[in-house]
């Protein structure tokens, strides 16, 4: 087993994808987004509630690989309490951390950042993040 494979399937990812906190439908959410990757069929609903311009609650539900699940789980954990601007900053910061190993990163993000070394998997760790980013950008525009 290669080092990069070990890093990718770091136990943090595997734990995270099995961690079912925030993994729940919320049919009454003010906003429901769909994160969908036609290549692999990964498909999550992202449920967001707002209080003024701040996200008050976030959860997700759906189907995906270990990477997309772990990265979505991380996302919804980080969203509550953030304004639109803060959400965008948070997403930018995540993207930077995925690319740049000089950033001060959590173990989980270190693991997720390995995705780019594997054929066809880069998309998995940004799927839900991209979806939220587009939503916020369009909302602000």
């Amino acid at each position: 087993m290669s080092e990069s494979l070990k890093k990718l399937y770091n136990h943090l990812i595997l734990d995270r994808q099995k961690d079912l906190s925030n993994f729940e439908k919320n049919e009454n959410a003010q906003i429901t987004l769909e994160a969908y990757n036609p290549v692999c069929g990964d498909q999550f609903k992202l449920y967001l509630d707002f209080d003024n311009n701040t996200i008050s609650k976030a959860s997700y539900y759906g189907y995906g690989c270990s990477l997309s699940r772990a990265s979505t789980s991380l996302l919804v954990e980080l969203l509550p309490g953030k304004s639109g601007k803060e959400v965008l900053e948070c997403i930018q910061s995540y993207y930077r951390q995925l690319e740049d190993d000089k950033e001060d990163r959590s173990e989980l993000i270190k693991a997720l950042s390995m995705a780019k070394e594997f054929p066809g998997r880069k998309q998995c760790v940004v799927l839900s993040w991209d979806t939220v980013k587009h939503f916020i950008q369009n909302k602000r525009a």
Partner: protein
Amino acid sequence: MLDIDNIRRQFPIFSTTTKTPLVYLDNAATTQKPLVVLERLQRFYSYENANIHRGIYQLADDATRHFEKARSRVAQFINAKYPDEVVFCSGTTEAINMVAQGLRKYLSSDHQLVVTAMEHHANFVPWQTVCNQTGARLRVIAVKPDGTLDRDQLDAAIRQKPAVLALTHISNTLGTINPVHEIVALAKEHGVITVVDAAQSIAYDHLDVKDLDCDFLAFSGHKAFGPMGIGVLYGKEEQLARLEPYQQGGSMIIKVSEESTTFKPPPHGLEAGTPPVAEAVALGTALDFISGIGLSKIKVHNHSILLYAKEKLSSLQGVQQIGPENETSSIVSFLMKDIHPHDVATILGESGVAVRAGHHCAQPLMQALNIHGTVRASFTIYNNREDVDQLIDALKTVEKVML
């Protein structure tokens, strides 16, 4: 018995000088190319290259002859009545679009087109599209949980005399072999135009279009040890003649004036522009390569590898095979516990085992089976038992990593 070592030596990609030995189990997506095909391509481009038709010099005349010889070779390979029943195109996808759009003018809301839920998108979306364009209705025949067609539903649909039945011979996802002979015969009785997608069968089993009696049949060169960018639409002479030319341009024309154009009869009237001459010629060589080994032997070998793989997979705890028990070609689709197919494929890929994962361009089938995707291994002549063993070993690694 095939001499697999000897066969492998004819494929440079398996040469032992490459960095990681390749366990290539993605043959349903595309096959590797033997030296004879590479050499033929090279010879054409090095010494025989010219545009065909209309050439009044030796090089062009020879190129035309090679191209038409390839047409005859294809006709012979599938036992067509005439070489002119073979239309060269860019692949299965174009071939099927050519039929769907070629029939467009005959279709209206009075018509029904029948496809099945196990079609590749290439034999599904073109029909859905022409239905949207003309108002014809698309009827999608169900697939049973075991991955076979719902024959009762299909037979009943055929008895309603739809305009067209488009059906795959072999499912690219599950390997299901459909009883196309029986089905085409029933369709013929009811005057239904039959279109057979033979993308997965051309390099697996003898195709005999006279015997099969279908109206159209399509396949790609790249899945039969030939180059990319070349494919075949077979059509019965009188059926090809009914198609509106899918594309217009040079060399398919008799007369053009400002007011109107007269097209050549098929096949040339359906081959607009400069065709992929080198690729057609090399496809002829690929078919020679297949015949040289012998399709009967190929089938026996491929199926034996499949059976070995299925047996080995059965012995792995938590692996669920998707698709029929029997009557499958050399394709096996499976799921491993609740591990996502892409996670499986990534870890297999790290071990040098190339498989495909996902919906395999068959989303309606995924919906029918109520799954999101599968891991698919597909075998052909250069695969051996060691390849299967490596797959199994790598699957054990998956388990270790993921669970």
